[in-house]
């Protein structure tokens, strides 16, 4: 983990409001786990707190992010020009423990929550079925096809792939473990289902963050074991551990 000043090698629109950015990070020694993230900040003062963005792909001395323009911060990040520098602190968070992900794996992503799952799919030791839920436009589908056993695409309007919600296209009983990242309402649904069916479930949570390091206690997640920090103890949690917070 380090505070890098990294050169931006790519920063381009890949879908409406969604950008792909690749930055140069030397000597990472492949020590980035899928599910980890970096805190990104432009070098001007157009916003204050660095923004947490998950690792989408890792190359030789490069890290790629896929992010959606949400507000001030991501907008500013999208303005960064090629060869300019950006501050990137990371890799942060627990990430997925690949060694514990075995058997038949389903990966379910929704919206921008799809982005972090690509590197996971690539890193898994077993192949996985990937379920991707989009609103209308799709992105990264070809990339997922490269690594997944099966890639199911669902859009809300059915313009591309199946129509409706991605959760409706998963036959949970086929899997030993289900991994999900996306809107809380979707993850809640999936985690609840998995608990009912007694299937192992991992979710990747989002919280407002200031430090991303575990120091400020701003990103608290209520778990059955008490308060945990999304940035340090997470962002990957077992579904049953955090269901409590959605219970009320």
């Amino acid at each position, binding site marked *: 983990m380090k505070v890098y000043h990294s050169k931006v090698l790519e920063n381009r629109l890949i879908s409406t409001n969604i950008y792909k950015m690749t930055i140069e990070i030397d000597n990472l020694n492949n020590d980035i786990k899928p599910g980890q993230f970096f805190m990104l900040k432009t070098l001007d003062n157009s916003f204050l*707190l660095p923004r947490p963005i998950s690792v989408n792909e890792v190359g030789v001395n490069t890290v790629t992010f896929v992010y959606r323009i949400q507000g001030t911060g991501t907008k500013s990040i999208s303005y960064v020009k090629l060869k300019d520098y950006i501050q990137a602190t990371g890799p942060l968070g627990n990430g997925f423990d690949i060694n514990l992900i075995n058997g038949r794996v389903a990966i379910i992503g929704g919206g921008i929550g799809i982005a972090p799952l690509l590197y996971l799919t690539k890193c898994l030791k077993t192949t996985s079925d990937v379920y991707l839920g989009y609103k209308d436009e799709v992105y990264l589908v070809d990339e997922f096809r490269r690594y997944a056993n099966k890639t199911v695409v669902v859009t809300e309007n059915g313009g591309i792939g199946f129509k409706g919600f991605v959760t409706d296209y998963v036959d949970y009983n086929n899997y030993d473990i289900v991994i999900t990242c996306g809107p809380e309402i979707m993850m809640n649904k999936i985690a609840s289902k998995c608990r009912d069916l007694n299937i192992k479930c991992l979710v990747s949570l989002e919280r407002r963050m200031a430090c991303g390091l575990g120091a400020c206690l701003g990103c608290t997640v209520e778990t059955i074991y008490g308060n945990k920090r999304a940035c340090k103890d997470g962002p990957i949690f077992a579904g049953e551990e955090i269901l409590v917070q959605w219970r009320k």
Partner: protein
Amino acid sequence: MANLTTNAMGVEFKNPIITASGTFGFGEEFSQIFDLSILGGICSKGLTLHPKQGNKGVRLWETPMGLINSIGLQNPGVDKFICDELPKMKSYGTKVIANLGGNTTEEYIIGAKKLSVTDVDIIELNISCPNVKSGGMAFGIKSNVAFDIVSSVKKVCKKPLMVKLSPNAENIADMALACESGGADAISLINTIKAMAIDVKKKTSVFDNIYAGLSGPCVKPIALRMVHEVSKVVKVPVCGLGGIMTSTDVIEFIMAGATIVQIGTGNFIKPDIAVDIIDEINEYMDKENIKTLDEIRGII
């Protein structure tokens, strides 16, 4: 290279740069990023006698060049701190400040007693946290209330006692004088400024407690003014903080009268910010041919 060693409260700091309470955990997370021994000191997360879960709901909100937080003093309690965190903190090779909060005078006193028999170098009495219902800032608004708590704690405290003031105090200079006469060995300021955020979409207050504490670059002009006001009236050393992001900010606080300074929100913006700041202060002093910071301290 310039001489940055700074003495305050009888404690010798390598340099005047300390990381502020609540923004640096207990140092551990940052120790993976840089060598903490370069710091003048580290201030612990605010401690209370008993463990605290902190506040529910949203805890962080960004504002123009500022951060509002409502952590609510989540901490493991004084005992667990002494047992689990302090030994690690002491191993970093820098001064350790324990930031102590409380709900009642009794809690402050017991906490201070317990910390007095440990290795902590300084106790920072937090009478200025806006994020807890009772206690906290309640002690930091009226000078006479502050005097009582400071003098009660001082009686049992075997460590140098630095009292951290709230910018929400009725009169910051009076408050500092009251704490000084209560026995404070130093005054630190400012804690966060009581502020508010509204989520227009949800039509609710962002924070469950409605009000929370503002910090970051946006508060610096106010913090600097208060440090100047206080430095002019107290004899004990002043520790200045509030929005420090650069070495220039540090120099400003020192020119305004601060002996030592703390970096808070800046640690979030660039986790190794203290490294840059210390380097740049060295460069500045060399360039300006300043041998020790005494030459510019309080010149305004």
